[in-house]
């Protein structure tokens, strides 16, 4: 009974919209506001479109890029903040987490000024290295890198917290025994830390994958999906179609596709976790 209001609200605002989202995605609306059922037309339209296939590809690059950068640093940071001999480390844990609690729009503004074409320090640094001054966000590759690094900066500490929780459960005797046997740091990591924190890793990777997949805010704020469509991930495409161009039918169709991809990812991760346990 106490749970009833929550359950009703969640049904009303999450489950019901998903159902009507499916309905809308099979419809088309004319300019005069009349809707008609068109079957899979919206989906067929999308999958025949070069731009949409590129949206899909960029979403995968975005997710993979973020994970590939975040996970190693997160492990490194997690091992550091759980070291018993490090005194006063908790203040650093809080500092590492600052990017995570910064509003996406705020960190985007900061990254925009970091990559500003005339005064941005990153721009000037690249100029020192390469000799020419790049306009970072006007270059398709550099723009995508900026988007990925921005998310990496925002999310590594979240994975770090999960891994630190996992490391905390490993009995310290294991490490001591291995050290006595003369194991190297790499051995300690690959033979003890990593196997015993796989579940924590998979869980945090699942969450970050979901968040990166549905992230429209940071990409939209940084690049609006540009230059051209070169950073237009699926979520940004959805955002533009539905809330900027007000094509709700197409937006709903992309939403359903995004939902299916998310559920697929979830199943894969959960399978991986079950195999481990």
């Amino acid at each position, binding site marked *: 009974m106490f749970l009833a209001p*929550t359950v009703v609200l969640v049904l009303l605002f999450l489950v019901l919209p998903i159902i009507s989202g499916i309905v809308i995605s099979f419809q088309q609306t004319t300019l005069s506001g009349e809707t008609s059922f068109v079957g899979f037309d919206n989906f067929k339209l999308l999958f025949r479109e070069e731009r949409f296939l590129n949206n899909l590809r960029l979403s995968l690059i975005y997710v993979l890029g973020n994970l590939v950068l975040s996970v190693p640093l997160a492990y490194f940071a997690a091992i550091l903040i759980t070291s018993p001999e*490090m005194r006063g480390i908790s203040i650093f844990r809080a500092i590492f987490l600052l*990017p995570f609690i910064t509003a996406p*729009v705020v960190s985007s*503004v900061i990254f925009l*000024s970091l990559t500003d074409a005339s005064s941005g320090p990153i721009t000037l640094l690249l100029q020192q290295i390469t000799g020419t001054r790049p306009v970072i966000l006007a270059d398709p590759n550099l723009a995508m890198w900026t988007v990925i690094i921005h998310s990496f900066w925002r999310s590594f500490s979240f994975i770090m917290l999960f891994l630190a929780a996992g490391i905390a459960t490993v009995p310290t005797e294991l490490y001591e025994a291995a050290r006595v046997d003369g194991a190297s740091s790499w051995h300690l990591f690959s033979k003890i830390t990593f196997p015993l924190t796989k579940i924590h890793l998979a869980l945090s990777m699942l969450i970050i994958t979901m968040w990166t997949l549905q992230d429209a805010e940071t990409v939209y704020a940084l690049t609006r999906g540009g230059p051209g469509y070169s950073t237009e991930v699926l979520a940004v495409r959805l955002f533009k179609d539905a*809330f900027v161009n007000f094509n709700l039918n197409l937006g*709903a169709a992309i939403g359903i596709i995004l939902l299916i991809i998310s559920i697929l990812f979830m199943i894969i991760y959960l399978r991986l976790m079950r195999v481990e346990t």
Partner: protein
Amino acid sequence: MKAKKGIILKWIGVIIIAIFALSPILWGLKVSFTPRYEVSLIPSRLTLEHYRYIFSRPEFLGYLRNSVIVATGAIIIALPLALLGGYALARFHFPGKQFSFLFLVFPLLPLIAVLVPLVTYLNRMGLYNKLTGLIIVNSVFNLPLAVWMIRNFLVEVPIEIEEAAMIDGCSQLQVIRRITIPLMVPGLVAATVFIFITTWNNYLYASALITKPSLRVLPQGILSFIGTWGTYWGGLTAAGMVALAPPVILFFLFQHWFIAGLFGQVMK
């Protein structure tokens, strides 16, 4: 000797990561206090001109006010519901309880996909372009995790204390009010901080539900400033720092509870 060297290396690692995490924020802070048209890395003097400028803009004050209203409203709606729901999950056995893990799955789903039909609904209900609509959406979308956070803290409170009060003749609601809530302070604070930060920082729901300029919340406002101010980074970063301050202050005050609330499940 070898152990000491190890510790030094570890501290170097910590400091490098801290620089990585902090430098963008410090850069934003620096730009917001640097006079316009000064480009050197270390400014010759600091200025409050950008802060004075943004606080002299009525539209910025409007965004700030809207953000405060929406975040407070979301807390007022979501917190009592989360308390009841979290209590039920922690204390009662009821059919369907095994599905409570869905509370953790829902927040992972791409809510952006849900927004499209939701906007149509809210429009029909007259809640489009209303702060009330935005408050409701923020409350509901934060509710599952808030319920879960409170549940995690509650499982820690021994049920025997409540049972003793029941035997002394308290009703279930009296028990919650007199016994459980005082013991629950950390959980409630964690949930409040969580709801505040996510609502305050959110741009997506606002941009889907609010198109009227006078009703924009802070993140929307800042993004619109990029459009109108171009590369006036002093003003933009100053606005960003104002938006950043409340989450950072709350986080540093309550980080222990906040982290325990978010990670209660895995931190054990």
